[in-house]
């Protein structure tokens, strides 16, 4: 399906990442947003608030992030594509509802423009320290998808992908931006609507008598029904059976929770998004994401100019983590260098995947600015020894 032209601002623009993300939501077909102001993310919904009345849809500023993160889920079950936007402290408040969305398989998008933490931290400065929270922040076992743009153009493109993936897998998808990417202004090309692929919601074709809300199809994802159309379905955050009815048995719990994770396997293995360069002959691979990947790019160039065989592995899908690809690389490279604006988060995943086959060298940074490329370069040089 192609994008609804009403939401697509076709043309060449000069936009910051937050604004580009907003245009991505509109192009993706989002017609409902709920938010609560927080730096450095608010521009996304500010733009949505100014655009949506002439496109047709709703923006509501809720009383807090708990409200925003569940209002979008009500909107989704009523038939809309919906999202919310926040940063650190607000993301923390949203955790219970990320779990609800995972449990009830509600397709929706959470945009987190990361700033320095913990707590109020560095409201106006970048961080990448919510990466583990995005994956594990709500209680219980569940899976999510997280995407990491590194430019305003990608804020646009990946936001559309985020919506598409959320519909395909029926999971909450996190757009893990950072303050730099959110606030940097660059060229953003918005294509014609018929050049934008949109994944429609998976509505059941069965009549109400035959429909079972959590009966998965072959790909382990069940089809949805829309409120108000006579299906009289039940949705609960309690452990539920295929009818959607609460069921406290160990077997139901096992079947449900395993499926919530297993349905994401295709994305973990093979379909994960990443950008690679010079991996063929690489001795050292720099694994990075978001704004840090742009600093790493410079470090890799400098290393190459010194004759070090450095390669690039940029995570675009951070979750599910592309463990197989890293494992495969680990068998033939000397080391991974992992710079990130935190004290060591995704590096743990790289270590886990590399499983001792290659050295893994973190280049940590507490946040507030980006790395100095020389710091990453030094780590590459060290690793290549």
């Amino acid at each position, binding site marked *: *399906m192609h994008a*609804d032209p*009403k939401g697509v601002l076709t043309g060449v623009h000069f936009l910051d990442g937050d604004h580009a993300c907003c245009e991505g939501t509109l192009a993706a*077909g989002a*017609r*409902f947003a*709920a938010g609560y102001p927080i730096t450095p993310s608010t521009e996304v919904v500010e733009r949505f608030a100014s655009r949506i*009345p*002439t*496109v*047709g*849809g*709703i923006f*509501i500023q*809720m*009383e*807090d992030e*708990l*409200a*925003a993160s*569940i*209002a*979008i*889920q*009500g*909107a*989704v*079950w*009523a*038939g*809309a*594509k*919906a999202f919310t936007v926040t940063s650190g402290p607000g993301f923390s408040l949203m955790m*219970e*509802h990320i779990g*609800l969305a995972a449990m009830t398989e509600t397709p929706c998008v959470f945009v987190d423009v990361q700033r320095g933490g913990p707590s109020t931290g560095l409201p106006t400065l970048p961080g990448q320290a919510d990466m583990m929270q995005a994956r594990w922040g709500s209680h219980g076992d569940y899976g999510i998808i997280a995407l990491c743009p590194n430019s305003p153009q990608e804020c646009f493109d990946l936001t559309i992908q985020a919506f598409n993936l959320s519909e395909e897998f029926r999971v909450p998808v996190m757009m893990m931006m950072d303050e730099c990417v959110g606030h940097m202004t660059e060229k953003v090309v918005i294509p014609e609507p018929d050049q934008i692929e*949109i994944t*429609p*919601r998976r509505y059941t074709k069965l009549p109400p008598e035959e429909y079972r809300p959590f009966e998965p199809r072959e790909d382990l994802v069940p089809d949805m029904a*829309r*409120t*108000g*159309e*006579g*299906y*009289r*379905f*039940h*949705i*609960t*955050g*309690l452990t539920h059976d295929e*009818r959607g*009815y*609460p069921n406290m048995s160990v077997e139901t719990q096992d079947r449900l929770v395993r499926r919530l994770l297993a349905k994401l396997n295709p994305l973990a293995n093979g379909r994960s998004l990443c950008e690679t360069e010079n991996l063929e002959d690489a001795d050292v691979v720099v694994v990075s994401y978001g704004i840090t990947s742009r600093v790493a790019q410079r470090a890799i160039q400098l290393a190459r100019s010194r004759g070090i065989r450095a390669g690039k592995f940029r995570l675009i899908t951070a979750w599910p983590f592309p463990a197989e690809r890293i494992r495969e690389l680990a068998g033939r490279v000397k080391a991974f260098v992992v710079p990130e604006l935190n004290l060591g988060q995704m590096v743990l995943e790289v270590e886990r995947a590399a499983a001792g086959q290659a050295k893994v060298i973190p280049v940590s940074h507490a946040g507030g600015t980006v790395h100095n490329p020389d710091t990453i370069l030094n780590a590459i040089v060290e690793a290549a020894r």
Partner: protein
Amino acid sequence: MTPTTLEIPDGAQNPVEPFLRMDRMPHIWCPGCGIGTTVNCFTRALLDSKVNLDKVAIVSGIGCTGRVAGYARLDSFHTTHGRAIPFATGMKLANPELQVVVYSGDGDLFAIGGNHFIHAARRNMDLKVICVNNMTYAMTGGQSSSTTPAHVISATAPYGAFEPTFNLVALAEAAGASYVARWTTYHVKQLSRSMEEVLHKKGFCFIEVLSPCPTLYQRRNKMGDGLDAMKYYKQASKIRNGAPTGECTLSKSGEIVVGKFVDRDRPDYLELLRAQMTEALGERYVESEASCSC
């Protein structure tokens, strides 16, 4: 208002069966619990109001009352503790055709969810909020709630509660609700009628229902069983429609003022939104479509 004679459908034992998920019976509520009584009233209100049941959605939070959504044969949503109202807000705004009912307990709606309640009332969001007030957190074992009256013993007030309580009807009125009523599970006719009334009223409507929790609240306070609660409700209630809500505070064993206190017309959220956007944008304003087909 003409009371409907309730037909018992073929194969059913009770006229409300078509409104319930009979395949989920027996329900979890204790003998003598008032929640079932309120559900009975609600199903009668649905029937009498003649609303299109396919367009009614029911949203609950968490608690004994929170289980209502799971038994109603409607599109039904059992959400998170305290957050039924914001979920319902999103649902209503994304598809204004829906009649969205929020059905939850006093702890859910007024302690953890209190902020959402006052803001939805302030916005005059077109939601029908039914609060079963058993004056305790029943699901978790009878702890104090923001409505537990002074001197009541609860699991977390073993020497007696002493915090001042919320007067829910006064709170609702002050926050901006269009309709505010209070009944008890003794007042089944009046409660059904109020529920029916709100199904036809626009804006934020609130009904508080005092309801017994014999298992925890009453037992711990030596207040007898469900029947004793009915006797108390009967003897202590005074119907005072239009009473100033500020005078309707509740206590452990004092008078219970019941009735319809507020019934006023204020533009609801969507009307206000439309008016403002039309004023600011004129022809450029595009109304939100009732649920896109994406």
